């Protein structure tokens, strides 16, 4: 396996994209802060309860979209340049992991900065990672793991969705959403309404996840293994689709 060329390609691609993303985000943050400061100084924010999403929450959506955009075009381009599917998949795993770890650090720093800045002018912050943090004696580590989990999951789920849709034919692309949202979800809802099995299972997993960092990491690892495993199963036999003569 020769992963270096594919890694260099992905690194260049994501570096440019990340620079744009954080550049815009910081610019918006500064503009928001300036606006808040102006409003607070000249008009007063009074009883208005304004809450801004934390950077980590926004990054999760950014990485989800990045995951959605990380398959077809790259698959074609890397195949054009002689890179096998296995190498492509392994390098995407590495890239996804590095992105999650790196954006986790940047997001924590920016979140802290934003929190202090916005609180100083009376604005609040909604932090999505608060909902998925494991219990720990080290709140910062716990928050970091939560952010990395959200960012990594968003990227790999996006990658799985785009891979599924690439592999499906037109009929499959129509039937899958209908099957999932029109049949599976209502069926599971009915099933859960009468048995409560799913609710109880979900509560049990939630309690287990929050019981400590190790259990959290275990669940996270299992989840990622399922998502990336399915992605590999679909990518390993993917072919160029356009008709050939």
């Amino acid at each position, binding site marked *: *396996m*020769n992963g270096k060329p594919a890694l260099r*390609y992905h690194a*260049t691609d994501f570096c440019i994209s990340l620079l744009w993303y954080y550049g815009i985000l910081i610019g918006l943050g500064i503009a928001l802060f300036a606006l808040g400061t102006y409003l607070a100084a000249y008009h007063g924010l009074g009883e208005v309860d304004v809450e801004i999403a934390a950077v980590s929450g926004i990054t999760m959506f950014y990485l989800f979209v990045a995951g959605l955009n990380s398959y077809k075009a790259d698959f074609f381009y890397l195949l054009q340049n002689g*890179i*096998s599917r296995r190498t492509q998949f392994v390098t995407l795993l590495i890239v996804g992991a590095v992105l999650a770890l790196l954006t986790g650090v940047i997001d924590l720093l920016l979140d802290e900065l934003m929190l202090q800045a916005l609180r100083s002018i009376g604005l609040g912050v909604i932090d999505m990672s608060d909902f998925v943090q494991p219990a720990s004696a080290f709140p910062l580590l716990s928050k970091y793991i939560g952010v990395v989990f959200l960012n990594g999951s968003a990227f790999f789920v996006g990658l799985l969705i785009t891979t599924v849709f690439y592999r499906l034919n037109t009929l499959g692309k129509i039937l899958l959403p209908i099957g999932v949202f029109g049949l599976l979800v209502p069926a599971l809802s009915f099933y859960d309404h009468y048995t409560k099995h799913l609710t109880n299972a979900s509560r049990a997993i939630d309690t287990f996840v929050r019981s400590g960092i190790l259990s959290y990491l275990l669940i996270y690892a299992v989840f990622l293994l399922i998502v990336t495993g399915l992605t590999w199963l679909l990518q390993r036999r993917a*072919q160029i689709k356009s008709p*050939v*003569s």
Partner: protein
Amino acid sequence: MKGLEIKNITKTFGRTKALDNVSLVLPAGKIYGLLGRNGAGKSTLLHIATNRLFADQGAIFIDGETVVENDSATGKVYLMSTQNLYPENMKVKRAFKEGKFFYPGFDEGAACQMAAEFKLDTGKKIKNLSTGYQSLFKLIMAIASNAPYLFLDEPVLGLDANNRKSIYQKLLEKYAQTGCTMILSTHIIEEVAGMIEEIIILHDGKVLRQAAVEDLLAGHYQIAGPEEAMQAYLADKSVLHTQTFGQLLTATVEGEPGPYPDSLSVSRPELQDLFIEITNEKERSQS
């Protein structure tokens, strides 16, 4: 073995058998012409040889290594196909810059020089190039890649006569400098007839002929003359094709001419004519 080895490749798309038990041995260091009518399976074969498609059966080896999920083997090949596999927003200059990520011998300077020579705007997005300029871009990538194997599928699609001539010249220069192996898959046979050393004719997914161009041409001749004399002469010959112009009959015949009457005249066929007659003959025999 140094070269390309294709063993019993079969590939089906739905009900269509694109390739049917194709086996070929192509030693390295030659220019091959991969010929065939539309739908013969040429592009499918090249796509399988570069791991873009999977064969249903069989295997392909480059320098003894399988091409299936093997970066070491596929990294030796640059396949220029009619499809654009470059990202939609990629500009020509970025593709030139990234060429060396994938091909260690990629010569960015030479690529830029060729782009200037052919007036290819490197600041343009690849998807916005015209068909001819897309072909030129991919040809420049292929030549600058310095890959030991260049597979060129319809390389001169959309190019004007001047650019076609210049590109053939560049390809021959590259071949003379590096001794790379080239497979040219094209329908413009007369233009590449002087370049290729060996031809492979695919027909309905099967190998119809594989031969050195010289041997193939030497193994056929065209003969023309009055109909009566021709009928007598052709009686025991393996005739591929005949055509009547008034009292005059012309025929393309397999084998050596041997003794023939003075009223008949013999000539060597053109490669393109021979290709047409070989494939037509096959279709006639099938029907």
